[in-house]
């Protein structure tokens, strides 16, 4: 097993190599010039050239690329052009904010999605099944920004039940330790802030959870339907086992493997693809961080942000692969 994990981590190297190279080239293909953005419309040609030289942008692209690569290998992602702060320091709070939102959303998506799928399969063709699958179909088709805006309007503006933006109350900011606010507030014993944090998480969390929840529900249902017809489910029933245990023990464990794949892919997407939700809900996450960097042509930030998201994506899928073998004794990695 350790051997397998080692092998997978080694395979990660060419992936990240390729990733960094593609991103590096693509952002340079976007029209625009960091020096121009920083110095503004009135800047003289000399001033811009001087700034480019100081940023190292006057070197040929391959020199720039190898500088960047050398930096990564020594654990230095470079400095942000905009803020002059090393990216390794700057990016963490954004990552934590995204991760907290993504984990919260995935928990909602998994708990509701998996159970809805199970019950739909168990009572196939019942009113619950039809209703759940119609909702799931709407869930995968609805644009997330529309859902976010509607949530803000209904539960924020009209009903006033939930805050519509940010991670917490700006008048009473959370003292960050881990930058995961749910953890920070608990460590400090600030249960009032803990509740506030959860209230802030609900609207963006639900908006973000909708698509994965619908996909997970549909996947669980079809996987369960197949497993429920299998011989070992009949055997378990022939023993006199309760239907609940037959479903949740014998059937679910077999049906969950394809669902895990989907959960892995969706989690990875939430990390990088939450830009829309983060923008609508003013969530200070990594998606917005990178998005803003694009506007400023902040090349190092874009490169590093994408690289980190790609890295996390691959890591999550590695964890999923390892989970397979924990669930299914027939899967052995060498």
């Amino acid at each position: 097993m350790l051997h397998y994990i080692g092998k997978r981590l080694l395979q990660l190297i060419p992936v990240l190599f390729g990733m960094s190279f593609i991103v590096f080239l693509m952002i340079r293909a976007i029209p625009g010039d960091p020096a121009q953005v920083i110095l503004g419309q009135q800047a003289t040609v000399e001033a811009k050239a001087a700034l480019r030289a100081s940023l190292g942008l006057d070197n040929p692209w391959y020199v720039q690329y190898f500088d960047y690569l050398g930096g990564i290998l020594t654990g230095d992602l470079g400095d942000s052009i905009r803020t002059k702060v090393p990216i390794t320091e700057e990016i963490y709070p954004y990552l934590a904010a995204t991760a907290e939102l993504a984990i919260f959303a995935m928990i909602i998506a998994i708990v509701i999605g998996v159970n809805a799928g199970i019950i739909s399969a168990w009572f196939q063709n019942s009113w619950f099944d039809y209703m759940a699958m119609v909702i799931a179909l709407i869930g995968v088709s609805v644009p997330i920004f529309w859902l976010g805006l509607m949530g803000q309007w209904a539960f924020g503006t009209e009903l006033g039940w939930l805050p519509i933006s940010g991670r917490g109350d700006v008048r009473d900011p959370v003292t960050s330790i881990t930058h995961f606010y749910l953890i920070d507030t608990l460590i400090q014993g600030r249960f009032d802030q803990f509740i506030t944090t959860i209230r802030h998480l609900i609207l963006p969390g639900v908006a973000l959870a909708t698509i994965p929840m619908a996909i997970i529900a549909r996947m669980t249902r079809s996987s369960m339907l197949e497993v429920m017809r299998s011989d070992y489910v009949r055997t378990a029933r022939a023993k006199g086992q309760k239907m609940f245990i037959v479903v949740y023990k014998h059937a679910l464990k077999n049906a969950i493997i394809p669902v895990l794949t989907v959960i892995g892919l969706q989690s990875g997407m939430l990390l990088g693809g939450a830009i829309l939700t983060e923008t609508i809900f003013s969530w200070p996450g990594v998606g917005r961080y990178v998005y803003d960097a694009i506007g400023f042509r902040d090349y190092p930030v874009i490169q590093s942000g994408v690289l980190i998201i790609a890295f996390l994506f691959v890591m999550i899928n590695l964890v999923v692969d390892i989970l397979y073998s924990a669930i299914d004794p027939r899967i052995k990695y060498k």
Partner: protein
Amino acid sequence: MSERKKVLDIINLETTFFTDDGAVPAVDHISFTMYEGEILGIVGESGSGKSVTSLSIMRLIPSPPGKITDGQILFEDRDIVMLTDKEMRHVRGKDIAMIFQEPMTSLNPLFTIGNQLIEAIRIHHKKWSRQQMKARAIEILTLVGLPRAESLLKDYPHQLSGGMRQRVMIAMALVCNPKVLIADEPTTALDVTIQAQILQLMKNLNEQLNTAVLLITHDLGVVAETCERVIVMYAGQIVEEASVQDLFHRPAHPYTQGLLQSVPDMRFKKDALYSIPGNVPKPGTIEVGCRFADRCQFVMSRCTEETPKLYLSKEGQKARCFLVEPAEVTI
């Protein structure tokens, strides 16, 4: 045989599948009795309703589309058709247990043998301690002839061969000492030497534990080796019921005669193996007349105009055919 106690009395059982093409009575008003400690065989081609009969007794008919639409299944004078789901769960595994055709897929691949075996014990003996359950599991695995029973508990199904898995299935079925064991083609998926071992095992266990066995098969050889009495099913109906000796020496129904003729005989060299012409009609398609008439070599005009009943012959076997000289009409 009559002095033996009845354990299972099936009276006029009808199981219907409600499909898009209409209601299909896969089991069409069959009646038979099982006695304590006997091995009763049900023979028939695919689609004759033998598996549906066994699943009906377990109340495991996939529903929808299937449903028991008529009749009674009396187990120790209780009609199990009328039991609630919860009451039925106490019958399954404890009073009536079942093993299936496919040992390769009938065990859950993700749980150990021990987990699945002990689960079968725990369902019906909630108060037993873990030690007691484990001891019983090892005892039953040894009884079905599995070596190194204790370490087997930690193994997963994929680590065992087909024959071993079927032994585990038998162990799991017998672990709560059921009165009736239904074996639905238990040896079909196994190779011939293993088949013989499994049949011998079932015979031995039947003698040792006095469990009545309902053996469902399409293999007449299996019937000859194991059973005392045989029921022949055709298109959802019982067409003949006899003791094994009678059935093999003087089959009464033309269908049974045809079945026996199509068994390859090593003593005589034949040019081609005999086969009954035609196919089994779909249940529910023939309303009047004998269902076998189309394929029967003795067909008379009466066969298509009148529906034959199950007649008791003078020799004491039952057959659904006008050629049988009836001593008595049973149904």
